[in-house]
């Protein structure tokens, strides 16, 4: 069965009269002239069938294991470059775009197939991260590296990144000739590093970090699937006859994903608030330290705010006589309005501590 292809929309007003957002929107809506054969070609690439299933699965799981191993070692070694390398060979984006397409085309078998691949890939990646951490045993002591920590507290920013990356992924898929951009999409919305972080965190017994990293992964997953599906829908990749057949049901198919996205925005919003709170508190502490002892240099500073209370650990190097910790605790409370439990360590030797209420 063939259908009449719609021509690209040539009726747009000249770009000079549009806002940048309108330009982007118009670009996303820009329709390619797809033939059914071309669509099938793209879908075939997303959903290997028959004799191509086994080689696809082999390739998929080999890349999952390799990319997660690289990511886990890169995270444990705190190397951003290595982690980016892992992102480039990570294969998870394809089944997610496949899931988007199967949602739009209402192809149940392909939908189940892609969900199975994603679930197995997810479990495989977490297991590989766990194993890599066990092999690297002893490298991690008590604290996670900054590269790992960065993936354990997702915020609304991560949701924004994932939505944009999902739009980009959908755009690349549905606009011929833009395939070279796919690696960029993979870097922007990393899937394997959060899973590696889940595995590593579980192996070192840090369940809180593991759940944070898992939240980041789920955020990315939902945002990619939903926004890629939207792009497929509006860019003409989903042919009109399917849209007409589905009538209002396309929106219904996307509804659970939209609800999931909103639901996930709540914990992300809380994370974002705590990031902002801690950043603000950190600045107030720095100011309080300067007033407390102008010669003090902050060597390390950890501030963890929970409501109107915060635990502050600070290491100071100073050439002046040591000022008592209670004065700093008082200064921080006056500056921030937050009660603190303060621990002051001196780089040379010694400790002091104070609390306010």
């Amino acid at each position, binding site marked *: 069965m063939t259908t009449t292809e719609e021509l690209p929309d040539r009726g747009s007003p000249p770009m000079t009269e549009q806002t940048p957002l309108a330009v982007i929107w118009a670009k996303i809506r820009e329709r390619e002239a797809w033939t059914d054969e071309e669509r099938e070609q793209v879908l075939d690439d997303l959903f290997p069938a028959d004799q191509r299933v086994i080689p696809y699965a082999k390739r998929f799981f080999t890349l999952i294991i390799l990319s997660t191993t690289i990511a886990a070692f890169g995270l444990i070694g705190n190397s951003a470059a290595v982690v980016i390398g892992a992102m480039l060979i990570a294969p998870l984006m394809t089944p997610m775009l496949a899931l988007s397409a199967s949602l739009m085309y209402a192809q149940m078998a392909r939908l189940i197939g892609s969900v199975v691949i994603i679930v197995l890939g997810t479990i495989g990646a977490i297991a590989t991260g766990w194993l890599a951490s066990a092999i690297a045993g002893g490298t991690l002591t008590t604290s996670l590296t900054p590269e790992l920590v960065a993936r354990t507290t997702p*915020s609304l*920013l991560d949701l924004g990144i994932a939505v944009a990356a999902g739009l980009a992924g959908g755009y690349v898929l549905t606009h011929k000739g833009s395939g070279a951009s796919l690696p960029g999409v993979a870097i922007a919305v990393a899937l394997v590093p959060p899973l590696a972080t889940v595995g590593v965190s579980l192996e070192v017994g840090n369940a809180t970090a593991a759940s944070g990293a898992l939240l980041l992964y789920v955020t990315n997953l939902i945002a990619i699937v939903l926004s890629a599906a939207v792009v497929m829908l509006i860019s003409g990749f989903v042919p009109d006859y399917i849209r007409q057949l589905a009538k209002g049901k396309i929106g219904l198919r996307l509804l659970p994903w939209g609800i999931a996205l909103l639901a996930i925005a709540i914990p992300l919003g809380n994370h*974002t608030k705590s990031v902002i709170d801690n950043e603000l508190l950190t600045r107030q502490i720095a100011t309080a330290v300067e007033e407390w002892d102008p010669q003090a240099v902050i060597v390390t500073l950890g501030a963890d705010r929970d409501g109107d209370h915060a635990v502050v650990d600070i290491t100071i190097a100073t050439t002046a006589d040591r000022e*008592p910790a209670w004065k700093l605790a008082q200064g921080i409370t006056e500056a921030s309005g937050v*009660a603190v439990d303060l621990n002051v360590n001196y780089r040379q030797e010694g400790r*002091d*501590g*104070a*609390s306010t*209420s």
Partner: protein
Amino acid sequence: MGRRQAELLVLLVVSALLAAACTTTSAGERLVVDVFGPYRGDDARAFAASVAPFEERTGIEIRFVGSGSFARDIQDRVADADYPDVAIFPQPAIIREFARDGILIPLSDVDVDEDAPRVSRTGDATPTVLGRDYGVWYRAAVKSLVWYPPTVFAERGYEIPESWEDLVALTERIESDGLTPWCLTMESFASTGWVGTDWIEDIVLRLHGPDVYDDWVDGIVSFKSDEIMEAFDIFGEVVNERGRVLGGAHRVLNTRWQDAQIPMFEPEPKCLLHRQASFYRTHLPGSAVIGEDTDVFLLPAPDGGEPPIVVSGDIAAAFTDRPEVLAFLQFLGSPEAGTPWAKLGGFTSPHPDFDTSVYADGFDRRMGEIIENAAVIRFDGSDSMDPAVGTGTFWTGMETFVRTADVVRTVTEIQSGYPQPALLPTEGSAP
């Protein structure tokens, strides 16, 4: 990088909004009482909760700052004439010193409950200088306790020692079973050493009785006397004998006192006995249940006699006499003071009219009964001594002792803290 910049942008916007909100809000005048004390962490929060009823009733704001190095810091503040309104002292001796210097407000100026508990070395009267009382005893603690794991004791057939001799035998049995008997750590910021002084006080009181104890606290019996040196010898058999204390001297001196008992809760306990006060319950791991995972027995007396009790306490005294300050001191001396803290656990009231039904569990109530029923009770010796020794050379001397095991050197160092010539009695009770 982009992510960081975006976060900062959000932060700047929020900061600007907050700044705008502040400039448009006019703060109402509220009476404030500045309180300085030794509470940190959970204790600081429990104290804040315990004064909340006063704040709600009067509208007076209690602004509390707690120092981990309280004894040093309060003396520095007074030297700089930087007085808080009220300070809560674990050391009645420092109150006496400040009272002598005329910088504290006598209780006769405060309408304090006449039954408000007073503290002295005998644990029943307030620090007194020339007949005037200066502080109200707000919170009490029993020091002469040994924490132990009841389940492990039951499994291994260990029994709670009835006498000092039983305790020595139990220690040796634990050692011969391949375990370390004592959990002991002392690091406490500028106050490091007090855990060791508690040991010496308990041993002196058990070995030589309350008269020698009182004379020692008053500076009449020297640290260099045979009685006190004998107490150091006995403590040395715990802290300086290889294998008696977990981790040895380095760990004892460099581990937070609050962490002493953690190894007792490992699947294979690393140490089984921890001599520490009742207030340690606040520092037990959250999962530890008193009565199941851990419990206490009284540090026994020689020959199985009734154990004498060393108590400590937090005593509130005022530096300023504004009405709101005196009202707060009056509140701290009332029977209701500390009720919310008692409900949380970790507070024992020394007030005779305190409602004992509010205690969170039987533990704090038990501590109250121990204090009430003790045949011989004495306030913490180092807290009652001349501060130059009690919170000075006695504390630092305990570090020397743990490090060197040298009794003569230690007692000489501690005794040198007294103004020369030594052995002048410090002022005790009122004439």
